[in-house]
């Protein structure tokens, strides 16, 4: 995979998740960061840090990105969310507009 096709998402603890740009763009917030010309440093480096989002939550979000793409292409599976993380995940999803 070419580097320009991916984006690096960094959690509060500094864990890095490298995902397809296409997947990350499921989030409107990330899409805006990556596509608005010049206004974000993220656009150049292809790296976004989320100091408010913990590693397990960010991991779940990355899973959701891929699940969402699959779902849109017709593979309708269930996206399981453990009750323990619903609140945190809800807030992160709200922030990311996803």
């Amino acid at each position, binding site marked *: 995979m070419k580097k320009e096709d991916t984006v690096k998402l960094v959690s509060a603890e500094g864990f890095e998740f490298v995902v397809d740009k296409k997947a990350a763009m499921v989030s409107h917030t990330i899409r805006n960061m990556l596509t608005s010309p010049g206004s974000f440093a993220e656009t150049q480096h292809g790296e976004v840090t989320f100091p408010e989002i913990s590693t397990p939550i960010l991991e779940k979000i990355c899973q959701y990105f891929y699940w969402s793409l699959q779902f849109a292409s017709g593979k309708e599976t269930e*996206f399981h969310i453990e009750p323990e993380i619903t609140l945190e995940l*809800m807030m992160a999803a709200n922030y990311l507009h996803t």
Partner: protein
Amino acid sequence: MEKGKGLVDLCIEAATACSESVDIWRRQRRTLERLPFQLADDLFRRLHSRRLLSPSILEIFQFCVNEVDLRGESCVDAEWMVYLSAFRYLHSLNIADCKNVNNFALWHLSGTYSFDGVLTQLEHLDLWGSEISNVGAATFEKFPMLRILNIAWTKVTRMPILSIACLNMSNCTIHSIVDGDNTATATLSKLIVTGAAFIDADQVLSILQLDCLKFLDISCSNIGSFNFLVNLRNLEHLNLRYSQITDGLMEQVASAGEKLRYLNLSNTKITSHALSVLVGCVPNLENISLSHTLVDDTSLLYISMASSLQLVDLSNTRIRGFVDSGRENSDKMLSLSALQNLTNLKSLNLEDTKVMDEALQPLSLLTELECLYLKSDFLTEISLHAIASLQKLRFLGFRGAVLTDYGLLSYRPPPLLCVFDLRGCWLLSANAISSFCKKYQQVQVRHAHVNNPFEDEIVSYGTSASFITTKVPMSRPRTVKSSNTSFVDERMKYSTEELLQLESSTGFSFMLKDLDLLPEILRK
């Protein structure tokens, strides 16, 4: 799972899947306190609709919820109020129609029994139909930010001093709206007392300081004297429907007319004379309803002088469309031609009046008209073609008319027409309507022969059949679609009389949701 559901929705769904899930996340107090209001409100609403709310769950939401709507819940009682009284950021609380919300419960809500008086942010309180009286009403003073209060259908007869903006005391018996200090009502901009029984209306209302009052609904009330209207200089909306207003009392209405934009006089005893009193006093009037009154064609002259009018409802009146000029054998004067002075007129309702074809000719001059409602046994296609020049029409009602297939098919609807209401035009055949629909697909036709999209789920319709064919009990419309897979022409089941009854029942296929209105034979 629905397509395109966002992660937030999925999370709310997971969180409210069952009470076990709730038990797991409810311990995360810190996280809950950080939850944005909009998310907390959504989560709270979903818990309520999944019937997972209980007093102990309420507690965990006390720092994150803005809006609570528990209307109609019989389980909501004083215990719930104790917890709700701790909702620090609560703006809006709807506990209408909760039969266990009484004075006692309200005292708990107001924090009277707790040390830290709370609900300081509460702006909107809806107690419609609950079991409260003046004792409970005394607690309203504990809510300093209260602006919108609904206590309709309660036993409250007098209000404590309050500075609120909107008050609904419909169907209450009203002794006084404020006790003592009358300047307290200076902030009131909207007052709804429909169906209220005043002990002494003029006394109650004329002592109020109502400089800000813009919206007044006294429909169906027992008010018999309207002197208080003289003080309402800023009134924009006045509803006198089913009130005791008469021609002789119209002076008072006129005195409040300067800024009036909406006036509803329907279902009263007024005649055309009442309009002559209003002339010149309502320069800003945009919307007038005279439906079900005794007004006749002479009123049209007065109406036409209120040049700001956009919407005129003259349905069920004595309008005939012409006035006798007094001389015998002379031409009748077409009274509707006066309306062409109303250059802003967008909507005209002449349903169930006595107008005939020739009287409707002047309507062709009302070129700004967007909505026209006609319903009469006297009308024929002549009228339909007379109004063909109204190019801005979006809604055309032509109900109960003697309209033939040929008449319909030779009519060219204006380009913007969205709805063509032909209910009760009993001469039309299904074929004619279906070819009209095919030709003008942008027009939604309403007629018993048409299967409208909005009742798709209820009505099954065979193209060759003239009637809705279903054997399934109509009282459970949802089952119709699933169980009625075969289309059977049941016309043979009914006698000609019954079929005619079906035909003439006004738009029975459009009102299936109002099942009580269905003709007997369809309710089998």
